[in-house]
């Protein structure tokens, strides 16, 4: 869909920027191969993959899907056109009309074979496929409907490969009236077929963009922000002029994905791979929604960083205004928390900050010390260090409750339902099952919240006859 492709485009641009900063010799290395193929195009057209040696032509390991052509065409005409394999696209003309059923049932059925074939092709080019990233929005028709259809396919065709989904949730003032329907229908699919979901809300991205603007325009003496360090910036990438208003917001999401995969790509003293994230942060299969935060949002130039600043980075990661959804993890219940640190940070800094922050956070009774940590030596572009925090926390609940409320408002009046029901394969039960799935999920979070602050009785241990 549009959102998925626009975010994706920023992701690939910033990924190239990151690797270019680290890979000075132009050698195609393990780190690059996680996201890119190295293709020999000298003989014209698409040649065979080159696994070692100098970089020839990098191709993103990606499949671009949209049911209208505008967005994908723009990408293919832009500065990143050579990064994408022209055969790894699936587009149509008329779009999905912001209708989940059109995306999921109609286009799903029509493009199934095509999608499977192209997925198989990309998988064949990988010597060890570990994970799929699905990037989409929940409120529309393609990203939401066809996107979740693809999620199902991924589970069927590649059951062993992890499925990480980055989902942009609609805000209350979303101009797509049917976004609650689309989102709830998509949620059911995410509940059942995703390994991990990273929910994102536009409002939060917008707030972060504003925060940075204010910082820059405050004109404080001696505090010049390093251009390429801003989490919203495209500086130094192929598309350095930000024309689109969404670019800054999309850069944040792109940086999230880069940080998430940094320890899998680059070396460090305590590596954290994607399968470890899923293992440690998902205690029960359906509770796989992770609230993310990125710090710092920018780096000031010409300033030495005393350890106080480092500690500030850790504090910020837990503050409400750094989260990528409208949520406050500090006042809700943690099931698990992961901290992925990049750059010049050592285990003692990590330990000191965990000890410092722990008392103010509420952890579920069976996971009182539930921290997963990773140390990656390579910092992001423009920073000396950075932190990505992922929380499995009941603070996602309000987002889901609001979604349910907005859904019910429409559903009670049966507003716009006919647009969905006249699609082949779509029935009233799809709606009732979807809302039921969401309600069950909310209930699970409720039950956990009920345990918060309650008395702790540890279960009695096994008794051994002496």
């Amino acid at each position, binding site marked *: 869909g549009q959102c998925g492709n626009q975010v994706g485009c920023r992701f690939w641009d910033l990924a190239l920027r990151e690797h270019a900063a680290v890979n000075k010799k132009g050698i195609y290395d393990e780190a690059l191969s996680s996201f890119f193929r190295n293709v020999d195009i000298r003989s014209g057209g698409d040649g065979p993959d080159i696994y070692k040696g100098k970089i020839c032509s990098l191709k993103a390991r990606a499949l671009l899907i949209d049911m209208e052509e505008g967005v994908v065409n723009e990408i293919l005409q832009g500065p990143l056109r050579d990064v994408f394999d022209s055969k790894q696209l699936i587009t149509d003309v008329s779009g999905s009309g912001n209708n989940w059923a059109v995306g999921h049932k109609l286009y799903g059925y029509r493009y199934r074979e095509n999608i499977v074939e192209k997925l198989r092709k990309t998988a064949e080019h990988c010597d060890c496929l570990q994970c799929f990233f699905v990037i989409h929005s929940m409120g529309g028709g393609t990203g939401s409907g066809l996107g979740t259809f693809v999620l199902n396919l991924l589970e069927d065709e590649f059951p062993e490969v992890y499925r990480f989904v980055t989902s942009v949730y609609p805000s209350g003032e979303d101009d797509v009236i049917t976004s609650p329907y689309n989102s709830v229908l998509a949620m059911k699919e995410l509940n059942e077929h995703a390994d991990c979901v990273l929910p994102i809300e536009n409002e939060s991205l917008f707030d972060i963009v504003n925060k940075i603007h204010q910082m820059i325009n405050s004109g404080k003496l001696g505090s010049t922000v390093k251009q390429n360090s801003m989490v919203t910036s495209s500086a130094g990438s192929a598309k350095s002029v930000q024309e689109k208003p969404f670019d800054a917001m999309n850069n944040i999401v792109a940086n999230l994905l880069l940080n998430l995969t940094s320890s899998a790509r680059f070396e460090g003293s305590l590596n954290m791979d994607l399968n*470890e994230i899923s293992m440690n942060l998902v205690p029960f299969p359906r509770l796989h929604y992770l609230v993310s935060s990125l710090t710092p949002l920018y780096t000031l130039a010409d300033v030495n960083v005393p350890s106080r600043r480092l500690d500030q980075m850790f504090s910020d990661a837990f503050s409400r205004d750094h989260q990528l959804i409208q949520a406050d993890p500090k006042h809700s219940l943690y099931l698990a928390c992961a901290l992925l640190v990049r750059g010049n940070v050592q285990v003692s800094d990590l330990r000191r900050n965990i000890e410092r922050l722990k008392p103010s956070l509420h952890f579920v009774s069976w996971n009182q010390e539930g921290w*997963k940590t990773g140390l990656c030596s390579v910092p992001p572009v423009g920073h000396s260090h950075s932190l990505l925090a992922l929380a499995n926390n009941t603070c996602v609940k309000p987002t889901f409750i609001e979604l349910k409320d907005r859904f019910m408002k429409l559903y009670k009046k049966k507003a716009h339902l006919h647009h969905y029901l006249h699609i082949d394969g779509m029935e009233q039960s799809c709606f009732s099952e979807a809302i039921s799935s969401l309600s069950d999920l909310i209930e699970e979070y409720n039950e956990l919240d009920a345990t918060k602050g309650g008395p702790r009785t540890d279960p009695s241990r096994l008794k051994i006859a002496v």
Partner: protein
Amino acid sequence: MSIVTVQLGQCGNQIGHEVFNAICSDVRGTHGLCSKKENESYHDACKERFFSEEEPEVPVARAVLVDMEPKVISQTLSIAARSGCWKYDDRSHFCQKQGSGNNWANGYSVHGPRHKEVIMNLVQKEAEKCDRLGGFFTIMSMAGGTGSGLGAFVTQCLRDAFPTSFILNHVIWPYGTGEVIVQNYNSVLTLSHLYQSSDALLVHENDVIHKICAQLMNIKQISFRDVNQVIAHQLGSVFQPTYTAEGGLHYSRNPLGDLMEALVPHPEFKMLGLRNIPQMPENSLAYSTFSWPGLVKHLRQMLIANAKMEEGIDWQVRPPPLGSFIASSHSTNKPLHFNTSIANLVILRGKDVHSVDLGSFRDPSLYTSWLNPQDAFNAWKTPRAFNKYEKSASLVSNSQFLLKPLDNVVGKAWNMFASKAYIHQYTKFGIEEEDFLDSFTALEQVISSYTTL
């Protein structure tokens, strides 16, 4: 006799590398403080133990490197080679791409069987390079997926393939406030399995070493490298050559066998703790002098009071007077915090080592009643100083040192298990709830045995 080291997972490989570094730098150092002849004997004994003579100038470590992802091994191999002092055999490693995802079940049930043949072939090759194989030393953490799960599987394979060789597992206890959320599950599964195939488990706790780095070594921003270097120093102080018999003419040639004989009289009791004093920053070494009586006194009190390092020792703790033992198996008559030992081994290295009086360690009140005090205590010595320390004393102890940490880990794991959290991640790869219960039972048994010493 030679020891083959098997480095498992990120932790195992990072530590293994520091261990060979420490050993090499000790041997090449000019601070031996002993005769040239002594130095040469030491050098030869060390070489035989840890290195093979394939290339004349650069010794090749007797090691097999295993990991389920490539980055750490690739780094380890290249850093070692660049040192110019020693290297690994270029072919003696095995890695995959996927990693184990911190999942013990993945390491044990999937990677283990899948890669058993390749890994055991590498081990066999290293074993064959030895004139006489003294046994295996495996290095792993309990918290992750590869070192712990695959490590447990490999240990089992070693036991099956080499039924008469000694196997010593070096196990890293993770920080209490997680490095990995499921670390307690992984630890319980690892320990219970290792107990079946291993001869002894030598444990280092990250929290303890971290404190040593902070308080004794004065390191401000402690990195894993710092932690690993302290661990490597402590291990070196145990495994470098010594004379095991009073008036012995040759360096002992069977370090693992000697260790087992000294410390593991009963298969129910395999948990070994390690203390090494003194520890200080390198630039302070020149200004410090220690006396053997002082070191021995501190080490003994560290044993009795279960102190983790030489600062903050509780001198109030005393062993109970002899004759106050009741025949029952409850230790209610022992004063609180007193650490009862089954067996102890003290290793002394450096100047005037032969004059040291270790009688205080032979005090029967330190030990549980079922071993002869004569048999419960052993001392190894060498006049050759270790790693720039004029005098260095190590204690390897089979005692209640690890009782509390073990109890903590089992308690936390049980607490999580009661809620069934994360269990689906393990059942996905074939480890069922019953397997967990078996492991819990096995460890509660070990805890009970150590408690009633």
